[in-house]
């Protein structure tokens, strides 16, 4: 039993091979969140369920069979894991982060400084893109996923990339300046196009880019390494894009509804003045 997934060159089988590290990680996350919720009993159930969903998705992405297939056989599954962790699990975990996390982040000047840097959208775009680009280069990928430690580093860096990406719009710190409204939408739009260079190379490469996946035993006969690479690019672009655009749509609707309520809640000054004049005129006429 290996503690983390990696490319071991063995022929693929559907024999269950759980990874101890994945179960320990989700157990740790579950314990930390459960403990943290105890100090914030009024925390909404919806957010707690989101965090639970995030933990379940982390388990799916880091345990057999998805992790085994992704780390050792199919680049498309590896890209699916990246989408699950970076774009779905991490934002769910951040949305479900209890207020104690925010209070902790605001607890010292140093942490506030770190939070401020993490909340900077320009930093977030550059750091997320740089990290994901580095992890997805053949030089790094082929050298890391062949060992459990290297593969763990990749998965860990995905989580870091997810935190960096979502911090400006989903910061758990109440003091951090969160992007809302159109700014958040623009930020997410930029994040949705940031991975395109990587996907471009995967889509148009004449040859398989990653030795690990090219030289892995085939899982599906007739599904070549280049086919797999093109599918991986599609998953990164289309599935990843859909997830971000779902966020953009949801945030836009949320913002639009709030704005509509705000606009309709107060009567504009010129109408109020006109109404006042009309009322005064009516009163004079009555006299």
């Amino acid at each position: 039993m290996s503690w983390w997934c990696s490319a071991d060159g063995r022929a693929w089988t559907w024999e269950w091979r759980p990874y101890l590290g994945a179960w320990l990680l989700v157990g740790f996350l579950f314990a930390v969140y459960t403990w943290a919720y105890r100090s914030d009993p009024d925390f909404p159930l919806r957010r707690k369920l989101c965090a639970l969903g995030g933990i379940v998705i982390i388990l799916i992405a880091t345990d057999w069979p998805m992790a085994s297939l992704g780390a050792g056989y199919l680049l498309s599954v590896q890209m699916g894991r990246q989408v699950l962790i970076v774009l779905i699990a991490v934002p769910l975990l951040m949305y479900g982060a209890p207020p104690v996390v925010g209070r902790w982040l605001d607890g010292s000047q140093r942490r506030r400084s770190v939070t401020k840097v993490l909340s900077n959208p320009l930093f977030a775009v550059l750091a997320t893109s740089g990290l994901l680009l580095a992890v997805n280069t053949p030089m790094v990928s082929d050298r890391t996923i062949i060992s459990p430690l290297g593969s763990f580093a990749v998965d860990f860096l995905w989580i870091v990339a997810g935190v960096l990406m979502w911090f400006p719009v989903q910061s758990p710190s109440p003091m951090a300046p969160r992007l809302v409204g159109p700014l958040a939408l623009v930020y997410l739009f930029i994040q949705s196009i940031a991975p395109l260079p990587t996907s471009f190379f995967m889509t148009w490469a004449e040859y398989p880019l990653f030795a690990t996946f090219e030289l892995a035993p085939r899982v599906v006969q007739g599904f070549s390494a280049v086919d797999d690479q093109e599918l991986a690019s599609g998953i990164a672009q289309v599935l990843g894009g859909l997830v971000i655009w779902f966020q953009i749509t949801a945030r836009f609707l949320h913002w639009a509804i709030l704005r509509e309520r705000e606009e309709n809640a107060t009567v504009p000054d010129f109408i109020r003045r006109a109404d006042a004049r009309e009322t005064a005129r009516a009163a004079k006429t009555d006299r």
Partner: protein
Amino acid sequence: MRAERPLGRRGFLAGAGALAALTLMGCATALDDIGGSDEDNRNFQGRLLPQPVAKPEVTFTDTEGRPYDLRTATDGEMTMVLFGYTSCPDICPIHMGALPPAIEKARLPAGNPNVVFVGVDTARDTPEKMREFLDRFDRRFVGLTATPEEIDRALAEVGFPPVVIDPEGKGGDNYSVGHPSQILVFTPDNLAHIVYPFGTREQAWAEDLPRLATIDWNLA
């Protein structure tokens, strides 16, 4: 007095950074072991043999049950030979799978090279099974077999060790077979000057094949 422990935190961050850097950049990989230096290999990505070897003088049987003399059937043509077995879980299907796209991309003016798969697991590599296995890659690939003794003789003629059947698996139907993992490439001079180990990538094949098809080894 500072309530924080900056050194401990710095140490943790430095350690995490070092761990990430080590795992990302420094992990040893077997992939680096594939192929010799360009200088040793005259810029080929396979491994040049110290002495060229001739095609084995063995009459095999093809998947149609007909006798197949490798020397006469492939005389003057580039021919790639892999001694493998159809139940092989990794080396054989991966090696064979890299060849069709590489040959297509190499666009050889003299036509496609012969690809010959010699099934060394004589108990399981029946003509039907070999044909089915090879058709997964390319219907033009040639499947050959012979008696175990003839196969071992052919292997010895090209300088490869004999076939080893996993002794624990004998008698059952699920056993592994020790076989050479290199593909021998016979150039049009009917000699093999170079072998390609397991791990040779599609791009390496596509880049080397045009040179192998036209090289004059006397001048090279």
